[in-house]
């Protein structure tokens, strides 16, 4: 093998293909000229590498613009948590009463939410139904009375006509 001068850098930085690396190692072991070239190169390399890296004097941080809504949504959990804490605090203090019933939330300020008896509710509904029916019947009664009065009037007029003699 000829001298490795042209492949010296690749040899030192181990970028030669494995077979060529093996062959170059064998050559260097036998060739004083290439060993000297190698030593000089490595000496310079060692001097360069003695210089450590620097730490950047400051961190680079990019602040990227976000859409307005995204920024607002960032605050949503905090605002929701604050509102929840506020409601719980007021409820514990007894000034607000919250009730969950039939998929509805009832919030009462300053008074208790009246308890509703299921039987009472059914009774109230029945009363309302009967009151409606009564109103219908009363209306019907008025119309029947009115019709009756009209019929009576017609009968009286007809009867009076029959009693009057012709030529009076």
């Amino acid at each position: 093998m000829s001298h490795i001068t042209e492949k010296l850098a690749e040899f030192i930085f181990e970028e030669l293909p494995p077979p060529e690396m093996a062959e170059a190692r064998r050559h260097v072991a036998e060739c004083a000229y290439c060993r000297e070239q190698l030593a000089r190169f490595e000496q310079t390399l060692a001097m360069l590498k003695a210089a450590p890296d620097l730490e950047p004097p400051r961190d680079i941080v990019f602040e990227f613009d976000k859409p307005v809504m995204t920024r607002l949504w960032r605050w949503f959990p905090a605002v929701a948590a604050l509102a929840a804490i506020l409601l719980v605090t007021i409820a514990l203090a007894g000034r607000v009463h919250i009730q969950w019933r039939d998929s509805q939330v009832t919030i009462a300020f300053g008074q208790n939410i009246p308890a509703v008896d299921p039987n009472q509710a059914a009774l109230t509904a029945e009363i309302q139904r009967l009151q409606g029916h009564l109103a219908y019947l009363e209306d019907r009664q008025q119309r029947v009375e009115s019709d009756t009065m009209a019929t009576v009037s017609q009968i009286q007029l007809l009867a009076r006509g029959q009693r009057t003699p012709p030529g009076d």
Partner: protein
Amino acid sequence: MKLGSLKPVDDRKIIERVLKGDTDAFNLLLRRWEKPIYNFIVRMIGDRDEAMDLCQDAFMKAYRELDTLKDLDRFSSWLYRIAHNTCFSKLRKDHGKIFVELQPETRASRMPIESRLAVETALQHLPEDQREVVVLKVFQSLKFEEIAAIQDAPVSTVKSRLYMAFEKLRAILG
């Protein structure tokens, strides 16, 4: 850091998040790449304050043009290419300006900070193309093919630049 095996999968996932609208995820890429890119630029420019501004410019450009990245697994090479363009734009603008004020020391038992200053100074004596090859190869551990892609040059040219640079650095550093 081995940039040739740079967790491309992780970068890919983050980039996909950014492209889907999770813009804050870009800061994860920043955290990961800020230091290597900053050090690359410092060694290219030789001015630490200026390097920080250029580093920020490079990342801003990367963010703006992220949707043009064709192969998400090659983000690192693409990012270095942006940093390369940023540096060379600055170097062209400041052509003739001398950043180096320190005299390189001899190699006798330097402390780390002295070594760094000596190396930074020595690097500034190299032509920009050679300096970049040294920085990307020695300090960023990129493969020759990756450097060739960044410099838009053949691999053989990249290796030649490295040899020439090492000859000069040996003379400067002792």
